[in-house]
Structure formats: C-alpha cells, structure tokens
C-alpha cells in the first residue's frame, strides 16, 4: 500500500511544478467560465419556459465546473500512460512487483489532484468576489455542502477509474485515436461538462440515467446548488459508489486480460 501512496505523492509533487501552466489554465478557465455565464444570462434574459434551474444555480454550477475542470474532465488524458502503452515501456512497469492497475490508478489520482489544487482556489476566490449576477454562490445549505463533499470525493474516485480505463483499452487498439477518443468525447458530454444535464433534451437525460458519467460531477454540483432534493442526493451517492466499484473491477480484469495478450505478442 505504501508503494501506491508513493506513486501518488510523486505525481502530486511533480504536478505542482507546472505553475506557469496552472496560471495559464486559470486564465483560460476564467475566460471560458465568463463566456458561458454571459451566454446563459443572455438566454435567461431572453426568457424561456420550464427552466430546470434558476440563473444563480446555473452560474454557480458553471463556476464549479470550470474551477474543478482539471479534476472531473476526461479529455485531458494522462499522456504518460498512453505513451507507455504505445512505445512498449510498459514492460518496465510490468517488471515491478506491484499491481499495475493500482499503480496507474494512484498515478492518475495524484496528477488530477495536483492539477486541481493549483487552479481551484484562485478561481473560486476570484469568482466569489464578482458582482451579481456573475458571482459564484455559496452552497444551498450546510447539509448540502457536506453531501457535496462526499459525492465529489466519490466522483473523483469514479472519474479516475474511468481515466485509467482508456489506456487499458489502448492496450488492445494500440492507438488512442479513434475508438478511445470517441468514447472520451461521448463521456464528457454525458458528464454534463459542456451543458448541465438538466438542459439536455429529454431522451438524452433518460439515457444518461443508466450510465456512470453523470455521477462524476453533475450530481455533486447539483447537490451543492440545491437543484436536487436531499433524498435524491443520498440515493445518487449510493449509485455513484456502485458505479465506482463496477468500473474499478472492470478495469482491473480488463487489464489482466489485455496484458496477457501483450505478453503473448511479446510487446
């Protein structure tokens, strides 16, 4: 267990080195967030019917999305793992007396947390100081906030498991272009990364109920802004946990299976 923690720590610390990238990331996210916020305000000003969230909830949701983007997105792939798979340096890793799946898992987790730590606080600080209606609002209640923390934690574990899955699939396809990239862009849409899920067309909302993606960030964000009732939130956290276990189990066994192939091929 200690070895896995060391992996986590190493990745976390080396991630903290990239400060100039982080500052640039903050600027970008702030700009993007601001653009989205203005677009929603413009839409809300123009009037609409049966809107699933009020404008303040939407804006807070958007800012949460931007400031936690490094944590909850799937498109920023862990290049190191993909490279390892493609150029065969994976054999080095196989030579180590630890389970490769969990080594990867903790690497990715460390990477994601260090990325988000550098970006989250400045963004949240600045956006809470913005004047109304642009401001990032507080949680709808203390209890909501606690639930938010729990579900964000599980969401993080879930998204890490999903991110580790992609290089594992690449073990069979040998290139992440194509299938894997297609999967990732679908996953990101269905996570609510581009549009909050309540704004989806109805049929898509129904589909995403049966998929793990909306439990990454959409659930915790909506708990925070108070867009779902407490019971629904607790129920969601329960499903989240189940998905997390399923994906880890799936990734773990898929890796075992795919590695056998790699060894047979002599890759």
């Amino acid at each position, binding site marked *: 267990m200690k070895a896995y923690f060391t992996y986590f720590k190493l990745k976390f610390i080396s991630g903290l080195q990239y400060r100039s990238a982080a500052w640039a990331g903050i600027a*970008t996210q702030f700009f993007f967030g601001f653009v989205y916020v203005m677009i929603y305000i413009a*839409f809300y000003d123009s009037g*609409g019917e049966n809107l699933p969230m009020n404008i303040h909830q939407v804006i807070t949701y958007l800012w949460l999305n931007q400031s936690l983007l490094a944590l909850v997105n799937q498109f920023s792939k862990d290049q190191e793992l993909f490279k390892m798979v493609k150029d065969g340096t994976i054999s080095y890793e196989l030579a180590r007396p630890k389970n490769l799946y969990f080594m990867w898992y903790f690497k990715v987790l460390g990477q994601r947390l260090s990325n988000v730590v550098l970006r989250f606080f400045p963004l949240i600080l600045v956006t809470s100081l913005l004047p109304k209606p642009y401001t990032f609002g507080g949680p709808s209640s203390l209890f909501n906030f606690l639930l938010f923390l729990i579900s964000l934690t599980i969401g993080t574990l879930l998204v890490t498991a999903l991110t580790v899955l992609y290089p594992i699939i690449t073990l069979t396809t040998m290139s992440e*272009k194509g299938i894997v*990239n297609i999967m990732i862009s679908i996953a990101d849409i269905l996570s609510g990364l581009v549009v909050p899920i309540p704004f989806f067309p109805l049929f898509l909302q129904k589909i995403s109920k049966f998929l793990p993606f909306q439990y990454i960030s959409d659930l915790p964000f909506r708990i925070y802004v108070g867009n779902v009732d407490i019971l629904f939130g607790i129920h969601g956290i329960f499903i989240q946990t189940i998905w997390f276990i399923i994906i880890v189990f799936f990734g773990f066994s898929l890796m075992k299976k795919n590695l056998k192939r790699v060894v047979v091929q002599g890759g």
Partner: protein
Amino acid sequence: MKIYVKALGMHLKSELEYRVNFILSFLSQILVFFTYYFVILSLFTKFSHIKGFSLWEVLLCFSIIQFGFSFNEVFARGVDKFDELIIRGDFDLLLIRPRNILLQVLCSDSDFVKVSRIIQAIIVLILSIIHLDIQWNILKVFTLFLMLVSSCVIFFGIFLMAASYCFYTIQGLEVRNVFTDGGKQMAQYPIGVFQKGFVLFFTFIIPYAFVNYYPLLYLLGKKEQYYYGLSPLLVFLYLIPCIMMFYQGMKRYTSVGS
C-alpha cells in the same frame, strides 16, 4: 505556392501511411465537432432565442467561426504548432533554407483530419442558410464570402501572434488558448449578446466582431447600411501587426538564440 502545395501533399501522404488511424480520427472528429453545437442545440430546446437571435442565426455565426478555425488547423497548422518547432530545434533547419521563413513555417505541418471539421462547418452553414429567410443580393453574397475569409484571417493572425511569443519564451504559452479556443467558443454566438466591455474588446483589440457580428447584422437584415456588410475587410488590417510581430520575434531569435 508550388512548394506549399507540394508540402501539403506530403503531409497528406504521411498521414495516409496510417490509414486506419486516419479514418478513425476523421470519424472521432465528427463527434468532437458535434459536442460543439450540442451546447447550442440543447439550450435552444429550452429557450426560443438569445437576445433576438434564433437557433439558425446562431448556427450561421457558429459555422463561420468553426470554418475559419478548422481551416487554419489544416492549412496553417505549422503556425499553430510553432512552439513545437522551436522546442524541437527544427526552426534552425528552416533558417538554412533559401526561402521565406513564414512560407516554410506554413509548410511545416498540417492536420488533414480536421478537414472533417471544415466539411461539417460548411454543412451547418448551408443548412442555416436554407432555414433562414435572407433577402439575398450581390453585396450579401459578397458579405458572406468576406465573413468566411476574415474568419480564416483572424485565426491566422492570432496563431501568428502566439507564434511570435514563442520566440521569447514558451512559458505560459497556454494563455493563447484564451484567445484561440476561448475566442472561438465566444464567437460562436453573435458578439452582441455579451456585455459591453467584451464587445468593445473583441471589436477593437481582437476584432472578432467584424468577422461575424456586424456583417451578420447586415446579412440578416438587422442593419441596412452597406458598410456593415463590408466590415470584415477591417480584419485584414489586423494581420499587419501580427506579421510584424512575427518578424520582430525572428530577429530576436537570431540574435539571442533558443
């Protein structure tokens, strides 16, 4: 020109070396592109208009910006990826050739997969033109043409500016995403829906508004004055400082080194 066309051909040939990959990437780009207008489509299921612009009006705006951006990714990729050229040290190889540097930079890279985005942008453009009831006249056709060209020009200028920055340092280069991706994201909507300060900034500092807002107003008949239709011409002026900056940066590179 002959060299540029030849280099493009060679890039295509290189990419076709990995046929399966090429086709799959091409397909995945279609999906990635879809995520872009998914936002717009979704929001328009809940709202009927944004500050008076209908779905198809927004999509027209969107397709013009996407067209210009993707066009640059295919045909001016070398400028977009200029930082890599500097980091690899391959820029030195361009300096030992007896040709214009900017031309050689243009020749240095191309991403043909992004042709799929160009095609989609054109499809969206055609669909929105069909759905919109535009009172066409010769000037309006010309305006549409200018919008497409100026969209290519503005992204080229921004890429070129970012490339000039690479001559000094590549630290914090990610900021360019604010102006490229961020600008693209924003300019998918008619700039007028944004706050005043934004509109001013993107009119006078980075002239996105001349690409697809003022001419759009003319095209849709929201403004009658002909100079709205001709306003994309101003974007060409914007190229001048960008090109100057690039050559300034190059001068510095040859005197300071990498």
